[in-house]
């Protein structure tokens, strides 16, 4: 009861807004941070708007003010800095899809971006928006976790760096404070012997929200057959994107040729607890999770010439 009263009063407050709705589009990050520290929760940060304007489709009038990041050029850059890649939060899905550097170093991320929505959505939607929106079905989230991404959060109080897996705390919930801005996504440059596979299952190719996604990234040792490290990350199977850590335990240090793909698929099935929803049942998702894990391992296997005959 208490909670519903609280909601009512919140609603009243937004409906009786007397301050005119404002639109800010600063050119510098510092200005954006100033505005954020001044308005906090009263302002909506807008990047591509491809999630936000759907969310506010029939209640745009509720938004107090907008902070548009479109004029901040440094948020649109993709650059290599020493041994890491820095991706600005305003980099669009189309940019990720087409960037030669992203295709070369992070093919799983590039392919995931290519599978988002439609050309219209990919031209506007951004990596930062996908992260901050924190949908359990966000297509870029499992790939970012699989590549060990760190997110840079900036406020007038300073900068902090958060690993992807600590950033998401629930469906559409993150640790981001209203005064903080996600500015950059940092990815370590992978070694040359890193292989990846992206699989998205949805009802149709275009404009589908994922029923399940898998981003599998395997790094081999110098012999190119011993597994040095691996991350199997899934979307749409839990309140947040998740890594199946047991896969790492099971595969690390093993000869890739000796792995039992069916067993690894079973581990993925056992370790997820998806829900029934409009895009698929729990049972379906569990079956598919196993099968796409096996498919992904087979694809990585064939990407370096198939298993060696004994």
């Amino acid at each position, binding site marked *: 009861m208490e909670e519903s009263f609280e909601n009512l009063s919140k609603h009243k407050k937004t409906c009786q807004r007397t301050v*005119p*709705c*404002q*639109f800010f*589009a600063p050119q510098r990050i510092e200005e954006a941070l100033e505005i954020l520290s001044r308005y906090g929760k009263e302002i909506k940060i*807008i990047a*591509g*708007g*491809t999630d936000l*304007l*759907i969310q506010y*489709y029939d209640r*745009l*009038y509720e*938004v107090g*003010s*907008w902070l*548009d990041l*479109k004029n901040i050029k440094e948020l649109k850059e993709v650059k290599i800095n020493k041994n890491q890649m820095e991706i600005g939060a305003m980099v669009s899905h*189309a940019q990720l899809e087409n960037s030669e550097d992203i295709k070369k170093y992070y093919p799983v991320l590039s392919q995931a971006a290519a599978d988002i*929505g*439609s*050309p*219209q*959505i990919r*031209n*506007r939607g951004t990596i930062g928006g996908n992260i901050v929106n924190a949908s359990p079905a966000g297509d870029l989230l499992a790939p970012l976790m699989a590549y060990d991404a760190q997110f840079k959060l900036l406020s007038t109080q300073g900068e902090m760096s958060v690993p992807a897996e600590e950033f998401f705390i629930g469906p559409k919930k993150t640790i981001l404070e209203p005064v903080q801005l996600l500015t950059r996504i940092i990815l370590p440059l992978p070694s040359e012997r890193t292989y990846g596979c992206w699989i998205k299952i949805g009802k149709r*190719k*275009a*404009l589908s929200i994922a029923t399940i996604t898998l981003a599998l990234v395997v790094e081999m040792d110098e012999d190119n057959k011993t597994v040095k490290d691996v991350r199997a990350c899934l979307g749409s199977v839990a309140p947040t994107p998740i890594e199946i850590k047991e896969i790492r335990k099971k595969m690390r240090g093993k000869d890739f040729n000796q792995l039992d793909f069916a067993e690894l698929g079973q581990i993925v099935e056992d370790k997820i607890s998806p829900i029934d929803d409009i895009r698929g049942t729990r049972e379906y998702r569990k079956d598919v999770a196993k099968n796409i894990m096996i498919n992904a391992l087979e694809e990585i296997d064939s990407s370096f010439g198939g298993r060696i005959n004994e």
Partner: protein
Amino acid sequence: MSKLMIELTINGKKRKVKTTASTRLLDLLRDDLHLTGTKEGCGKGECGACTVIMNGELIASCLVLAPQADGAVITTIEGIGNGGHLDPIQEAFVETGAVQCGFCTPGMILAAKKLLKENPHPDEEEIKRGISGNLCRCTGYQKIFDAVKLAADRLSSRNGGRGEKDA
């Protein structure tokens, strides 16, 4: 709600428009500028009826706030073709029967325009991907594919193999 002034170049003409912070670009085009060729279907970016070309990119105008388009260069369906003369893409749509109820057509034409500008000789898969953000509930798409192919052939023969000219 306070008014704010934005300036855009629409179909080659500079326009200054008074709008509000929460007005969608789609509503600005239709209601303020009376460019009603741009349609609203779902209002959620899924159907493509509101597609326009903004700063050279295909976008859904229902998912852009008008002030986000401040300073932008926009082409709507009214900017395609020249007065009484249809654009070759429009001609191809008419000839192949790719227009039935017509509601998706403005968005489809703009998606085709953008596709052929970037890729003058698309194969069937590339055409499918190029118009994947635009739904048509009448044609079953085959005639739209035919139209895009016909337009591609004509444009490349007219422009000496170079394909679509600048929009």
